[in-house]
């Protein structure tokens, strides 16, 4: 009687209560992410006989283990720490906690508004903490077993993981600890210690502690001496060490030169040159020789400077490197000029022009022309000076460098003015009627009419045009 005409689908009045599959999925994921111990525990649960009644199965499904509760209730850092400690990784735990405390202390020490307050605290960056935990525990396992090379590798992996600028300190920290464990590696003859020293050298250079960096690089150099170790790219570690030392010596010498301590600077640069020679890279060797030459030059010892510059020239000629050849010639010219050998100086400057003809060396060419111009002007040969300045100006127009262009303009202008000066002042002094007319005409036209007019005027004494610059 009450049967409906159409069979209706059975639609429950309330939505199904057990619509909790999503929750279970997320929980299963959590279980998966839990540690080995809790996995083991979960497995033992799974192994329970399947005849368990539905009720028990449900309660199993709904109940949470202590670990799962802890995941929700405690911070991620807390869970990580507990996880590590449960497996006995107490060193990893204390290192992790010490790092977090160190970051917090740094922030507390920094004043409000410093950039560190903008950063996310380390303990809230979960992926970083996870990575730390993973590699630290692996390192500790290796340490317990006495496999220090593995410890070292894990620490270096950590150091490489932290690349962002605000994580630099972490990277530095792990390079430091890496050095400690590398020192305990016995089997490899000191290769890892050498590498760790090289890393520490980089770290110290980045921090600006050049002296410490030098010590580390020296240790690196010492350890690689006589060994044929090669890196992935096929370069020997020894030549790397030499190059690193060259770099740090040069940096140190730069500092000394800034303070005008020429003696020690030359000494350091000579050491750098030795290293560059030992490293076997010709380009670097040339560069080193050039730096020594320059240092001698600024100390006033032009003879020795020329000797080193000659070395540089030789190497550059062999390598066919025109840019460095140009640099060498320029330095030579400067040396000779200060020695008073003006003719030779000009020769070198002209050589400088010659080797700088290449399209990519336009800036050098411009510089060479400027040098020549300045030289001729200082000798009073304004017309030749002008020629060179004009050429420099032309090149500068294509260089897209406003500063250089303006400089060329000013120099050219001064040189031209100086060129006119003699006849102009001569005419002003004589003050004949013809002269007055000429002056008036010039004032009107502002065209250069003096040069052809009075050739004798050039012999009259001149102002030093250089001082007018």
């Amino acid at each position, binding site marked *: 009687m009450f049967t409906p005409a159409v069979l209706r689908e059975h639609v429950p009045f309330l939505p199904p209560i057990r619509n909790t599959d999503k929750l279970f999925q997320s929980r299963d994921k959590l279980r998966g992410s839990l540690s080995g*111990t809790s996995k083991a525990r979960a497995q033992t649960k799974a192994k329970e006989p399947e005849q368990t009644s539905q009720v028990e199965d449900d309660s199993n499904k709904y109940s949470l283990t202590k670990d799962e509760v802890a995941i929700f209730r405690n911070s991620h850092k807390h869970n990580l*720490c*507990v996880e590590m400690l449960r497996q006995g990784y107490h*060193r990893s735990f204390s290192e992790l*906690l*010490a790092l977090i405390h160190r970051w917090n202390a740094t922030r507390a020490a920094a004043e409000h508004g410093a950039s560190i307050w903008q950063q996310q605290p380390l303990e809230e960056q979960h992926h970083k903490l996870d990575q730390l935990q993973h590699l630290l525990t692996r390192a500790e396992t290796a340490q*317990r077993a006495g496999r220090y090379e593995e410890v070292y590798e894990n620490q270096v992996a950590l150091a490489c993981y932290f690349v962002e600028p605000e994580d630099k300190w972490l990277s530095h920290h792990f390079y430091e600890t890496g050095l400690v464990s590398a020192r305990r590696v016995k089997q490899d003859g000191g290769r890892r210690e050498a590498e760790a020293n090289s890393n520490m050298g980089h770290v110290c250079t980045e921090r600006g502690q050049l002296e410490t960096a030098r010590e580390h690089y020296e240790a690196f150099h010492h350890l690689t001496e006589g060994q044929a170790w090669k890196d992935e790219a096929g370069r020997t570690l020894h030549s790397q060490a030499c190059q690193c030392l060259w770099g740090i010596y040069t940096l140190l010498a730069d500092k000394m030169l800034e303070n005008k301590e020429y003696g020690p600077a030359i000494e350091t640069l000579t050491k750098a040159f030795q290293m560059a020679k030992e490293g076997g890279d010709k380009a670097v060797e040339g560069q080193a020789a050039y730096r020594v030459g320059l240092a001698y030059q600024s100390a006033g010892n032009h003879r020795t400077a020329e000797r080193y510059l000659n070395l540089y020239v030789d190497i550059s000629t062999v390598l066919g490197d025109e840019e460095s050849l140009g640099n060498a010639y320029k330095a030579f010219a400067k040396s000779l000029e200060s020695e008073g050998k003006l003719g030779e100086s000009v020769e070198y400057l002209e050589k400088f022009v010659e080797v700088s003809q290449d399209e990519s060396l336009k800036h050098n060419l411009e510089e060479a022309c400027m040098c020549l111009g300045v030289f001729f002007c200082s000798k009073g040969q304004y017309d030749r000076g002008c020629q060179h300045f004009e050429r420099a100006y032309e090149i500068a127009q294509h260089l897209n460098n406003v500063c250089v262009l303006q400089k060329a303009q000013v120099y050219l202008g001064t040189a031209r003015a100086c060129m006119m000066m003699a006849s102009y002042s001569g005419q002003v002094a004589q003050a004949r009627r013809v002269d007055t007319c000429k002056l008036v005409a010039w004032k009107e036209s502002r065209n250069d009419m003096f040069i052809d007019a009075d050739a004798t005027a050039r012999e009259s004494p001149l102002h030093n045009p250089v001082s007018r610059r």
Partner: protein
Amino acid sequence: MSAKINPLANPKGANKVCELCEEPAYIQCTKCFVTFYCGREHQDDDWIAIHQKVCQLLIPVRTPVPYYTLEAEREQHCTQILERQKLLMEISQMVAEKKLFEKRHKESLPAALLSLRSAMDIYGTSGVQLVPAYLLLAEANIGLGNLSPAEQYLTWADWTVVRTPDCSRTVRNKLHRCMGRLFIVKGNLEEALFHLANDIYYASEEYGQDSIVTCGGYFLMADVFFKQGKMDIVNSLYTEVANTWHSHLSKLLEKHIENTITPEESFDEAQQAEADQMLRSMLDVPDGCPEQQPDQSAALAHSLGMLWLLDKDPAKALEFGKRALLYSQLVPDCSLTEPIQRLLQLAEEDLNAANKGWPELPHYPSAHTENQKST
């Protein structure tokens, strides 16, 4: 001291129950008339444990409130009672702790119970202040081997802590350590590790990583790993503990020599006993453990020597110092040799001073002896 009472003669609604077991009471204390017991035995236990110290204090707390006409008087009475209850709680807690340290678990039980009762009177049944009392009870029960009541108390304590989100780390640390102990005794090592890990975490956050409180957790953990047979972990934990104690004691000795030691820093007897036991058990390697490094043994023996020197027992200090020196000679260029020799020197000086008796002061007849003579 005890008078019999008959439960049937009690006024209606007033059930007198035993102070210890909460069974119907048959006798009462005649000094305070407010404590009741089921029998002679419980009364004696309670008397020895705590009652002799608090008998008179209990009277005002347990007698019914007299009739006051003024609001102010009633309030004053209330605050007075509250203060007394707090005092009672403190005293009983202290007594319980002391007895626990002395390993007299049975005697600490009634004291702990009283402290829990007074805490409940003050803070209600769910205050976080109840947790220390629960922990004392649990610890006493663990010591007596009654695991199920211990677990019961710990569960209550745990529940109380869970319900208090801003609970301090000190309390959490103590709770987890106690639970760790319980599970070690029960043989559930995984659970024990879980709790000890939490304990160490809270302790390091609260006291710092190189504090001796954290160290206690590490030591218990080493015990668990020892039972699991993971010797490499045990060794590394022992090294950690030994180093921490060694540096702590060295600092203390340094201060002791300079005479700048503060009362908070110095040990009390219980801590001293605990430290002694801990260091000794690490020094005397149990069988089946790989041979210890001589430098670690030297550090341990040195620590023990310093510990005893600080505790004014130069003979023992000398003994351990000599042992430490022996170990340190096994290690090439050991950095410890010099401090050990200094320790030996100090111990010998102390020993000589003790043998000679007190430094010779000019003898003045005291007023007391004068009086005796005159009488």
